[in-house]
């Protein structure tokens, strides 16, 4: 965020031209900015600048109580707010040593997986739009709308869910969840199917995505990649399996792994993950039905939350990757320090390495496939 970024915008450096992409640009997902030094169509040097959506979330957290911070976490990854809420709640619960009732954990799992589907749908839809394929976006977004209906009817909010409370969840799943879910499931599958038909084996799509911004597993780990982008590079790492939380160890599901870490692999990994999420929801709901109707939804939590002094880091597998919260408490009712580890922050810093030497069109494709969400990037 410098006033006269180098290479300077407006001036041309020798044979190269500086193109300032963003912060207002159709492909810049909100408010990202990339200053690119180009030689015709190819990118010589790429300099991403972030901070245009910086709202001081971490500073805000230090001045709010533990519960008041939950709605703020909605505004991190606004495509899937629920994993943000749960991740933060889990961190505070860990700090206080609270054991969350199983039923609440299952409700969390169901909602988080729904959010994962919604997030991947948006990501793939936008990837399609950025590569010029407009239609799959609508197929997916219509289904995401249905998922948002479920959220809305669960707690009244569609985008910023403020889901759950520290120590559990505030409300049970409504009675007709099963009906709604069974109605939704074929729709989601059909939309994915149609997207697959339109894109996956499309010659143009393959040309545009295969081999574009490929990344090796070592580089990805070195840069701190997590989530689908890391799995696309061929590293089988998923916190849901490696560090199980919320009873994820009780569900059977596959973790898709790519090979080359290119745009195509990231797309395929996300496509398969949606299907796996559907399986997880089915299993979680089956377990949920076995629970007694009056099983507790909240652990015993004091009205005013004052965790003992200490600091913990707790992370979960958000749709984008490892979403962690570092919470430090001084024993008072306000967190002393909250640090958010957004997954795409780590991924996006490798952006120059990913796209330098490629073409301008690849920059857009790569950016969409990383699913960079400005809200959680800038906090």
């Amino acid at each position, binding site marked *: 965020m410098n006033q006269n970024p180098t290479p300077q915008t407006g001036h041309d450096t020798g044979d190269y031209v500086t193109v300032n992409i963003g912060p207002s640009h159709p492909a810049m997902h909100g408010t990202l900015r990339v200053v690119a030094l180009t030689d015709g169509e190819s990118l010589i040097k790429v300099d991403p600048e972030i901070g245009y959506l910086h709202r001081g979330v971490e500073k805000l957290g230090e001045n709010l109580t533990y519960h008041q911070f939950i709605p703020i976490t909605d505004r991190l990854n606004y495509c899937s707010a629920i994993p943000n809420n749960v991740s933060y709640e889990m961190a505070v619960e860990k700090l206080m040593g609270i054991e969350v009732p199983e039923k609440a954990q299952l409700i969390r799992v169901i909602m988080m997986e729904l959010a994962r589907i919604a997030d991947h749908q948006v990501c793939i839809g936008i990837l399609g739009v950025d590569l010029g394929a407009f239609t799959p976006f609508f197929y997916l977004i219509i289904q995401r709308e249905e998922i948002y209906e479920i959220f809305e009817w669960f707690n009244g909010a569609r985008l910023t869910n403020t889901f759950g409370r520290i120590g559990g969840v505030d409300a049970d799943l409504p009675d007709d969840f099963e009906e709604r879910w069974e109605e939704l499931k074929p729709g989601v599958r059909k939309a994915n199917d149609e997207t697959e038909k339109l894109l996956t084996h499309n010659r143009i799509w393959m040309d545009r995505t295969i081999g574009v911004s490929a990344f090796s597993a070592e580089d990805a780990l070195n840069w701190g990649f997590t989530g689908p982008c890391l799995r696309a590079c061929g590293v089988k790492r998923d916190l849901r399996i490696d560090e199980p939380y919320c009873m994820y160890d009780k569900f059977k599901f596959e973790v898709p792994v790519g090979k080359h870490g290119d745009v195509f692999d990231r797309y395929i990994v996300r496509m398969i993950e949606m299907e796996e999420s559907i399986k997880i929801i089915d299993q979680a709901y089956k377990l949920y039905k076995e629970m007694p109707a009056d099983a507790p939804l909240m652990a015993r939590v004091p009205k005013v939350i004052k965790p003992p002094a200490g600091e913990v880091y707790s992370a979960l597998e958000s749709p984008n990757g490892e979403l962690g919260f570092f919470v430090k408490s001084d024993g008072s009712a306000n967190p*002393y320090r909250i640090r958010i580890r957004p997954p795409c922050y780590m991924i996006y810093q490798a952006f120059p390495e990913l796209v330098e030497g490629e073409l301008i069109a690849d920059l857009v494709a790569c950016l969409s496939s990383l699913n960079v969400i400005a809200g959680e990037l800038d906090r």
Partner: protein
Amino acid sequence: MDLKNRVEQCLGPENFVVAMIECQGDLSVEVPKRSVVDVMRLLRDTPDLGFNFLSDLLGVDNLDLNKPKKKPKKKTEEGEGAEAEAEEEPKEKGPLPPRYEVVYLLLCLERNERLQVKVRVEENDMEVDTLTPVWKAADWPEREVFDMFGIRFKGHPNLKRLLMWDDFPAHPLRKDYPLEGQGEERHLIYDD
């Protein structure tokens, strides 16, 4: 052998470890500032530790923690005894601890173990060696710590502000920076 012993064994002989705290299963190791890069290399390359993934890097400002005298008194008047006890603890540890901390969150992918490594930073010597040669992932987090706390990282390839604009005068996550800001304005300069 549990993680604590292994870390002690690995870092012990050189007396790297200043303190070791466990909080709700999270182990944190405090190491001296000058040797932080060596410690990280050791932690990464020692076979039975293998912390090969930098999960995150963050700064903490301990300003409020370091001045427990004023606040507990006020609060004890309000009748919160437990609070006062909790906050008086650091006072007993002797001289005032350094104001800033840099915390490195490490992860071992093979064993899924996590470790916090902590470095204390004095207010009069705000420079830490950069971790970018060990993990490229340290790039932006270090810039952010510089941006938010003013801690400089020696040897960082591109130590500019990350989130705030370049000539922003303050470091907003410091505890003495007001929540509502100080009325800084960004003046955009356009060509011509």
